């Protein structure tokens, strides 16, 4: 069973300058109790993907084809907005980058934590106890006192932990975490991801974790999906993708991380060029205009090539000896 199975998802937006193909043939699974990371440059469709899963696409966006199967039963694409609303929160919950945006500044933390249990038949005392229990789990000191305090009385790291506690309160099957540690500093970032992993093990939920911090992905996630210009260009386990990238984009992205440059260098590596205009997608490989290994075969549409055991890459060179090697 998969917690989430996305198959052939295509999302279009209508814009003043014509239709924009934001997500193209996106397919990947989130297994039970797996933490799946999504990496990619800004504009690669990470947020559109989340909104498509949650049924919160903007008015000018529509899912043209594909399915998003939740727990093998509900297709989120076809579900009524009412049924979707019942899933969001108790079954699928989210944590965003900015914890302040998730917490109401004028309501005490305790009241907010009780309010979000409104679907639960429990008594108020039980709900309060549950709130205290969750605050304890996310290591907020003096959880009983914390209930009476307001969001501004907590530090940034604590606020994000409270947001995580609220997201996991109803023990969802899927937690979507959109850059939850980007606004935090190194030490807090590490504490937060360690906490996320502990809680995920305890609650037994699956996590879709979005980040552009490759180090955090490598440390936290089981599987990784690499997106570029609205397409999944490579996916596999973290070890498969980080140790043996088969798509030139993945290989370049990993090279660009200053953490991978062991020697000190003043000039950092980059990927020359820009993401293509999604209103005018190239007919062939979407990465070809920026790719150092471009050849005539790249003018044809690329399909995902299966490598080993769940590792796929959308590049016609993926199966060759060493595709990541830049030709001399």
């Amino acid at each position, binding site marked *: 069973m998969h917690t989430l199975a996305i198959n052939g998802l295509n999302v279009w937006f209508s814009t003043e300058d014509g239709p924009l193909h934001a997500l193209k043939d996106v397919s990947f699974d989130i297994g039970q109790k797996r933490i799946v990371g999504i990496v*990619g*440059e*800004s*504009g690669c469709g990470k947020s559109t993907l989340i909104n498509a899963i949650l049924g919160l696409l903007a008015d000018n966006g529509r899912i043209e084809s594909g399915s998003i199967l939740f727990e093998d039963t509900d297709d989120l694409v076809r579900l009524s907005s009412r049924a979707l609303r019942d899933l969001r929160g108790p079954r699928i919950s989210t944590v965003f980058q900015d914890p302040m945006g998730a917490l109401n500044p004028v309501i005490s933390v305790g009241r907010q934590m009780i309010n979000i249990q409104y679907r639960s038949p429990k008594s108020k005392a039980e709900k309060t106890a549950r709130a205290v229990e969750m605050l304890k789990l996310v290591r907020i*000191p003096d959880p009983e006192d914390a209930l009476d305090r307001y969001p501004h009385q907590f*530090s*940034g*790291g*604590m606020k994000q932990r409270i947001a995580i506690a609220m997201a996991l309160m109803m023990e969802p099957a899927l937690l979507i975490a959109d850059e939850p540690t*980007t606004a*935090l*500093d*190194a*030490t*807090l*970032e*590490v*504490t937060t*991801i360690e906490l996320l992993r502990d809680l995920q093990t305890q609650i037994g939920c699956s996590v879709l974790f979005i980040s*552009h*911090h*490759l*180090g*955090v*992905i*490598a*440390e936290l996630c089981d599987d990784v999906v690499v997106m570029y210009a609205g397409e999944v260009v490579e996916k596999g386990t*973290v*070890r498969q993708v*980080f*140790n043996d990238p088969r798509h030139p984009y993945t290989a*370049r*992205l*990993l090279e*660009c*991380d*200053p*953490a*991978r*440059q062991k020697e*000190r*260098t*003043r*000039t*950092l*590596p*980059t*990927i020359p060029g820009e*993401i293509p205009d999604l209103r005018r997608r190239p007919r062939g490989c979407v990465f070809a205009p920026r790719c150092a290994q471009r050849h005539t075969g790249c003018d044809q549409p690329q399909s995902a090539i299966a490598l080993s055991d769940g590792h796929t890459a959308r590049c016609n060179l993926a199966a060759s000896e060493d595709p990541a090697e830049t030709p001399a």
Partner: protein
Amino acid sequence: MNEPVLRVQDVQVSFPVGGFGRRGSILGVAGVSFEVNRGETFALVGESGSGKTTLARAINGLQSISTGSIEFDAQRIDGLGKREMQPIRRRMSMMFQDPVGSLSPRMTVGDLVTEPFRIHGTDGKNLEAETARLLSLVGLPTSFASRFPHQLSGGQARRVGVARALALDPALVIADEPTAGLDVSVQGEVLNLLNEPRERLGLAMVIITHNLHVVHHVADRVAVMYLGRFVEAGDTADVFERPRHPYTAALLSANPEPDPDKAQDRISLPAEVPSLLSRPSGCEFHTRCPWVQARCRTEAPSANLAVHFTACHTPLAPGARPPMQEATS
């Protein structure tokens, strides 16, 4: 000897707090000194709330200081009025944290990159030619001049920010989190753009970031801030190779590496950052320090200004591990 571009001495910034009879003040920056030379990049690292941004704002005159002095180009600039500060800002530019938010939404990219000329006088420069020059400098096509900030990606907005900061060929750029929220390849582009005038014109930089991998590559010297003070400062390579202050060691060990097979050997810090309203006694890091001793609770470590500065009673030996790590974690 090379005259430093920027000299900051014993700077303190205090903020009033309270009200209803409970008046007091907190020190956002609690006595900080450093110098930045021509062509040098100085990095400030530390947790949020450690005073990095306040210090940057104080240098730029956006925040008044309560004690200490700031010299820029051998001229004292703290306490200058808005009008007196204007010619200084021509040679000292600032890049703010939020790339899109720091651009006026109603101005085009062309207007934005030439705004510095309109504020500081054009010197007979052809603004259209300057727009083209600046856009090509940061690798944006000239057609972008007519775009508005909301039509830019985060990376493109950052590049416009770089163009604005470099428009008047400043002697010093203060960049507050220049790469936060950017992807690794765009991050590299932005840092390379800043590196070019450093090599060519001897631009000095103060970079505030919490990305330690970036600091490792681009900074010549680094200072680690905790509760508004420097706990360690020195040559970047030296600090990274052998941190002497426990906080620096913890910060460096907390840096996630993009390698799934790398064994994580972390120094975990217990408890939360103390409030500036009630600073801990003695060494202010003692509440979280794994190496804490009786003396640290009462006696503040002296701040000596050696080449490699460490505010700690017992600076760490190379590769030191916390004594109680197993028991506490």
